[in-house]
């Protein structure tokens, strides 16, 4: 692998995991968000070499068999997407956010997904989805 290989290209082209998208390619839009050791990172702004030895989670790794992750399920039920291009990154950012803030306010969610742009939804249903997922995950944890 060339040292200049970006993590997002390694995931998409070497691993064949095309769920992670390249959006702006300038670390603005968040479409390339994946988890590195459980924390959200923009994979267009990280060398694959920097991730050597780390645990990377992409959208493909969230579901448990046929059971979607609560965040995925909530996006489905609350119509948290339209065209879908930002969705993988948005879901990964939300998973990381809920790990850090399990009981977020609406403002926590809006600020927490600041690094992810959606040009379709106006964010309303995305915020609803993340709040619903948080509720669901807290219920499951009890």
């Amino acid at each position, binding site marked *: 692998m060339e040292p200049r290989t970006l993590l997002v290209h390694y995931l998409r082209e070497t691993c064949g995991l095309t769920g992670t998208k390249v959006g702006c390619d300038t670390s603005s839009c968040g479409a390339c968000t994946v988890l590195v050791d459980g924390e*959200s*990172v923009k994979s267009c702004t990280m060398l694959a070499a*920097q991730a050597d030895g780390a645990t990377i989670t992409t959208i493909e790794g969230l579901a448990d068999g046929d059971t979607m992750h609560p965040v995925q399920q909530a996006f489905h039920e609350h119509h948290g997407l339209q065209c879908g291009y930002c969705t993988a990154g948005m879901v990964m950012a939300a998973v990381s956010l809920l790990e850090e803030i399990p009981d977020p306010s609406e403002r926590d969610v809006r600020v927490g997904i600041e690094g992810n742009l959606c040009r379709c939804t106006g964010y309303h249903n995305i915020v609803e989805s993340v709040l619903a997922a948080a509720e669901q995950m807290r219920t499951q944890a009890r």
Partner: protein
Amino acid sequence: MIPAAFDYVRAESAEGAVAQLAEHGDDAKLLAGGMSLLPLMKLRLATPTVLIDVGRVRELSYIRTDGDHVAIGALTRHRDVETNDVLARECGVLRAVAAQVGDNQVRHRGTIGGSIAHGDPASDLPAALLALDATFVAQGPGGTREIAASAFFEGFLETALAPDELLLEIRVPKSGPNGFAFEKFNRRAQDFATVGVVAAKTAGGTHVGLINMGSTPLRAAGVERALADGAGAADAAALAADGTEPSADLNASVEYRQHLARVLVRRALEAL
């Protein structure tokens, strides 16, 4: 966008990084979190031939009190600054500023030392540390030296760090949990500040740092003097843009930036 080709080496310790800098010379760059350097390399505005990755030097990630100041390892991530309990007690302003750097994803990777060494006048932390009279500790082949923040930022993306030096530690005088205000004005979420202001009550009086008001982070010296002479917030803030030479870009003209500086300094002082 893909960076120009380079050789990648990983440093396992501060000494190792300094040795590799000495070996590879001026064409090498240190890679910490990469949140500033990698975008520049993707745009090919930076084309180092060797990247020395210090991102795994865990010994440089810490926050602890040391006498009258807080010592922060250069590779401490913004996220760890933002959530740190020691800073909550001893230097609340730094937490508040770190919490508004970029977005969550950026704060998970970006480091305080990387931000300082990059020396971007539009970044929040350099101006905050300038206002707080921080001291930076650098290690080179001949040992370590201390550099005052006031002598560190020399020009646009230029600092007092020599090409063979590694930033080790940031020392910030204790300023308590409160007694600060941070005003960051931008037009889009996660953007750099069009103009930003950090005001803090310190042992040496009220200090004011200006973000994106020139080729380096700045202190609003006229404002600080006026406050020391007993001026009120509005009168002192009127001096905020004096002597500044901000750049013009798509977001703001020179005049608009200077207007913003006066307004944001007034708001910050009134909030103190």
